[in-house]
């Protein structure tokens, strides 16, 4: 069995292979691999004794799950209400231009993924962008370009 499926098994066993823990199990797998591949979903369905359609039902319903690979650097722009009234739309446009990505897209070289999030709770900084856990308050187009170039 491949390394990744061994890890998936470990996660599933941690929940006693309980069907009801499906969402929790998938969250842990997503956390580990940053996305959910078909192989992993098939294996999970098999282990939990659930039909694949239930896994697709759950993974397409909840926002956090991704069925495509995610970039190495996670970029999020907060589009909570407070950030919105302070110019999150314009910030999102600038970040989109800087990364050449639309929201929910990943660059072809899997370097960046761009996401929007609703309220990070640092409304005083708003509008805010987060790149790999680092918060930036309303960066200009140049500042975005700089930080993008710093990423490996």
């Amino acid at each position, binding site marked *: 069995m491949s390394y990744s499926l061994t890890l998936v098994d470990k996660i599933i066993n941690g929940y006693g292979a309980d069907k009801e823990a499906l969402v929790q199990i998938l969250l842990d797998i997503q956390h580990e691999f940053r996305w959910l591949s078909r192989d992993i979903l098939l294996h999970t369905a098999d282990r939990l004794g659930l039909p694949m359609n239930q896994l697709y039902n759950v993974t397409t319903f909840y926002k956090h799950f991704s069925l495509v690979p995610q970039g190495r650097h996670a970029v999020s722009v907060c589009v909570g209400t407070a950030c919105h009234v302070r110019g999150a739309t314009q910030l999102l446009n600038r970040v989109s231009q800087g990364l050449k990505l639309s929201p929910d897209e990943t660059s072809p070289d899997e370097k960046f993924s761009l996401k929007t999030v609703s309220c990070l709770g640092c*409304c005083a900084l708003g509008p805010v962008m987060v790149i790999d856990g680092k918060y930036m308050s309303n960066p200009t*187009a140049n500042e975005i370009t700089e930080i993008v170039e710093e990423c490996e």
Partner: protein
Amino acid sequence: MMARLNSVSDLDALKKDILSRRDSQKTKVSVCSGTGCRAYESEKVIDTLKAKLSENGLDEKVEVVTTGCHGFCELGPVMVIYPDETGYFRIKPEDVDDIVNDTLKEGKLVDRLLYVAPDGNVHAKESDIPFYKYQNRIVFGNSHFIDPENIEDYLALDGYQALATCLGTLSPEEVLEIVKKANLRGRGGGGFPAGQKWEATRNAPGEVKYVIVNADEGDPGAYMDRSILEGNPHSVLEGMLIGAYAIGCQQGFIYIRQEYPLAVEHLDRAIKQMREHGLLGENILGTGFNFDISVHRGAGAFVSGESSALMSSIEGRVGEPRPKYIRTSIAGVHGCPSDLNNVETWANVPIIINKGADWFTSIGTEGSSGTKIFSLVGKVNNTGLVEIPMGMKLEDIIFKIGGGIRNGKKFKAVQTGGPSGGVIPENMLDLPVDFDALSQVGSMMGSGGMIVMDEDTCMVDVAKYFLEFLADESCGKCVPCREGITQMLHILKMICAGEGRPGDLELLEEVAAMVKECSLCALGQSAPNPVLSSLKYFRAEYEAHVNDKYCPAHICKDLVTYQIDPAKCKGCGKCLRNCPVGAITGEKKKPHVIDLDKCTKCDTCFMVCPPKFRAVTKLSGNETLPVAEVEEDQV
């Protein structure tokens, strides 16, 4: 590891022991490490402080408490030094030297870190600062003194005493009566009395019953539940145990958004500590009461905060609501009676037990007892979490606590209740804030988001924003919500794009009425509120968009152009260097020009143009640049 507490007297003994090990004479430095302050690198400040203290041999004299959110997020990282209660704000790691040398060693203030009010007054003592002075912090009261990772901090401040009182001296019926008498209404949305909910679950037929904490804080502008869980998780857990005892259940769930990693971490640790102390599991405090908790993380779905959806999600399925002919208090998780209350509601329970129902009802208004936490955000000077007694006037919250509008702009409206709420205009600022008053003006309390808007906020754009959020979050199960919101959003998008047609506003109202009336759950039923309330109070602004293709706030991208006022531009070149698409041309020290064909309206030039020039101007509708007054020397 801690010995198990086998009786109420064990708990008292442990509290005494903790207090005897603590030196009340010690200087206490409380530093916020909530998510907001962490974004400003408060962790670095704490590490530097601890290192400097041991360098200076002050470890024994000074205690550093890493706490959850203090509320004043605008000026983070924040620090309070006791016993003088000195408040320091916007602290950088470089400032720590001066704090240690001047304040902690010599007792002198570091002036540059003190709070300066807009009127120029300096307030050294935290409780003198208007932001705190007008609050009544009962739920947040202890957050300055509690390290959320240390159960001893909570126990030292009478933690789990309310639980001991209930288990030791009160019957479940008596506990229920106290909560009913206190008129504790749900802090998460509808404001339904918690005591009544508890009673319904208690009286419902069935052996197995559940209590649930709703920590699926989905309102995209409210974060008080996260702050409570991050800063004082035991207060919520204690409340939950008390509820479980009153209702008669042995199993509880906490449903929390996975987007709140720090809150999940603190919650998990708190639960572990409870188990170690025998506060969870079998025979709690030797009273024969059994209870356990499991934590479920939500995977990102706004609608899952709705009670029946949340319970379906706990069962590992998609979080879609069901029709509630039978309430979840009768048939919830696994078809068993399940009581669901919000985080802030649970956190109020131990306080009510400790201080009594009469004390609780003495705070607030007749219909709404106690306090409410609001996240005061948007275009207000003092952004943060504020806890106020119910009934405080909107204008006091926004202008006294919030310090008024940023950058000297004019107040326009305040939005409460998140995507289910509405906007409240300036002429209603004297509204006393409680559950009923907010509903009467077409808004709602919701979970406590309070978004302040100024003259630069477009009300049509805000309505569109909420509908975009709701269209995205609608689960699609019922047609009125799925299709209705989509159609309303379509109309608003056309209006914002300058393609509004006569009759659009009437059509919006018609669709809104249908969505409100026919949707399955509260998400759809309340979805039209942001649109209807802004149409009611700001109709002229909608009409300007439709009839004159004019956005008075200059926000709607398609109705706005960016131009440089040649009379004001000094040719500093800042906009030219910052424009990402090279749309700006001009020679040094001469007025610059924006090529409107190239401009992507990214707002960068408007942001970087120095405030002393303000040459970059947004124009909408029939607006033109002011005709330059020809200066004499140019003639």
